[in-house]
């Protein structure tokens, strides 16, 4: 089994960083001091990812206030809107408001990637919002229809990928909870496929991963199977293994095996058993293992302990490989 491991979303801030960001907001610490701590903590996350043998380090995306903010603050047509609940959690994001057809600002997102990734771009994993979740979770006042917007955001994200490929990045993970929370149908589903075709055209040999979470993926499988991407991830704490489509997959099999809604650590033996069962049901060229949803729903220590499970799972799977 060809197993890859890594983060699938933002990592939580350390307690020191929590304190520093609070102090900064209250005028008790300087921007320089805060920047130093961000950089130090990013290096810590990167070191952790290396120590755990992850494929595609992320440095945690600790500076991003939420998944959409780097885009809502820099792309044309957007403004940053009200606090809005993030799926079925007690956390919030600022809903992007789209006032006019969106336009990309070259270089803007690259400038907001974790700085340590720039030195390791070829191996790094770039986190991006998926075009469908982006569309569904913004307030669309642009006059554009939803299918047209999904397709347009797919094209813009494709341009983003093209630019980042030029900067040496090669692996792109699209966060797409809404593909399973509110599975699209009809023209919206076709627009999702078209959007990812635009991404595919920009990849130039790179890898694209669509990562779903937050709901049972079963109703979305017919669409997920059609996506022209390297791998599709499903959250196994929401989707039963027995419900995975049976038979070989041309895409990599992404399996969310760490539950970001509980501090309870997973048992590596049990995780390995479930991964073997999933792979037996749906053989795939590669298996990508990671947290089901974003680990920043947990405190730093708990998230770190959870990640320690993945190398143990990998070892268990390697031991059982034919």
């Amino acid at each position, binding site marked *: 089994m060809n197993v890859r491991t890594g983060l699938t979303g933002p990592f939580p801030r350390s307690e020191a960083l*929590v304190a520093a960001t609070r102090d900064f907001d209250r005028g008790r610490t300087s921007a320089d001091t805060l920047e130093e701590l961000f950089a130090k903590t990013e290096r810590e996350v990167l070191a952790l990812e290396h120590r755990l043998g992850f494929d595609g380090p992320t440095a945690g995306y600790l500076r991003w206030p939420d998944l959409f903010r780097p885009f809502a603050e820099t792309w044309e047509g957007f403004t940053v809107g009200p606090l809005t609940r993030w799926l079925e959690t007690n956390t919030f*994001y600022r809903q992007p408001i789209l006032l006019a057809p969106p336009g990309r600002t070259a270089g803007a997102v690259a400038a907001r990637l974790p700085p340590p990734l720039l030195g390791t771009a070829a191996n790094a994993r770039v986190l991006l919002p998926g075009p469908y979740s982006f569309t569904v979770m913004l307030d669309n006042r642009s006059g554009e229809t939803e299918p047209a917007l999904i397709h347009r955001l797919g094209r813009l994200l494709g341009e983003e990928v093209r630019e980042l490929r030029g900067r040496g990045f090669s692996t792109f993970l699209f966060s797409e909870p809404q593909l399973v929370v509110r599975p699209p149908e009809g023209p919206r589903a076709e627009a999702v496929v078209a959007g990812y075709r635009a991404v595919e055209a920009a990849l130039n040999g790179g890898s694209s991963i669509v990562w779903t979470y937050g709901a049972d993926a079963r109703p979305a499988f017919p669409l997920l199977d059609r996506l022209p991407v390297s791998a599709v991830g499903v959250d*196994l704490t929401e989707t*039963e293994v027995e419900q995975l489509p049976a038979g070989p997959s041309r895409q990599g099999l992404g399996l969310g095996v760490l539950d970001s809604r*509980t501090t309870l650590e997973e048992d590596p033996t049990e995780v390995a058993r479930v991964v073997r069962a999933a792979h037996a049901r749906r053989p795939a060229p590669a298996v990508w293992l990671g947290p089901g949803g974003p680990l*920043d729903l947990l405190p*730093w220590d708990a998230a770190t302990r959870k990640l320690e499970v993945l190398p143990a799972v990998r070892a268990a799977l390697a031991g059982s490989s034919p």
Partner: protein
Amino acid sequence: MTRALFPTQEIGSLAKPRWQLQGQRSEALDESARAELTSWDARVGFAAEAPAVRDALLTGRPEDAPPEAVRDLGALFALRFLETAGLDRVYDGEARRIEMYEYPIRQMQGFRFGGHVRSFDNKYYLKASVTGEVRLERPYHVDEFEFVKRHARAEPKLPITGPYTLADWSYNEYYLARQPGWKGRTARRAAQREFVVDLARRALRPTLAALIDAGCRVIQIDEPAAGTHPDEASIVVDGFNAATDGLDAEFSMHICYSNYADLLPALLEAKRCRQWAWEFANRDTAGHDGYAVLKVLADYGDTREVGLGVADVHRDAVESPEVVADRIRRAVKYLGDPQRIWVNPDCGLRTRSLSVARAKIESVVKGAALARAEFEHPRR
């Protein structure tokens, strides 16, 4: 007891006045805090009930105004603030509480706080893991209620965080670990039900019983998390029923910012819930009747009281009494019975300034009076 139509009530928290916050920190009040204390005292009349604390605060002698005495004065202020606005049911604006999760959890054993979680931007909250069987150390909110009971001139209604919300805002370790095999959806749901019911039986019920023993007759169980997982509505109900099992009081359930239709009919199994206190005004916008969802209750034949949210707590714009009366009218149209309606803000008003909160509550009271006059003396 026969009540006039459309009695009014508060729902929860008020913003804490600046003088209270500074006073609790044993700081000398700044000019604006002193002015705030003086002007609200002139308006609602509360400080004369604790003249020594008032004088110590106003004359820059924080050492003579211990934090607990300042909290008492804050509670008195909130009571008079709500009473003089004309509400029929009041509380203390949650003047002693900082939030609605951490305090109750810290009164229990079986939990461990493991660090901060980001709520949004650079705002964080502490979220505990349940790592053992839940055990109550001591019933909580009882001293707070006894103070309110001693001083309230209107009928007190106590708000308390419900078991489902306490569980949903915690990490479930202990109960999930007891589930055999893979901790997927089915196991997680079963573990959550066990956690909620245990919390309800072991912590909420003894606390509610102690409050009732202390004379509390009207209790609002807050379940703001209910709407985040509509497919767990039956767990919300199991928690409510376990928490109130065998207890005799007027219980209501407060839920906000949820699609109520998704929670029905499961929610209707909450046996001792006498009133649904729900937010509506926030969703009542041009072109969208925020009260139409009440028809679903009527369709299910539910005849409980409704605590009707008529003032949006997320906007500064103050609803006019006419708008409030119109909202009541529409609710009557959907429910069919004016006797079942209590009138209140959508939720706690702590996010609004005291001036805006006061104006909104006054409008709630005046709007209820307009509707009352209309329904009690209909024009021919």
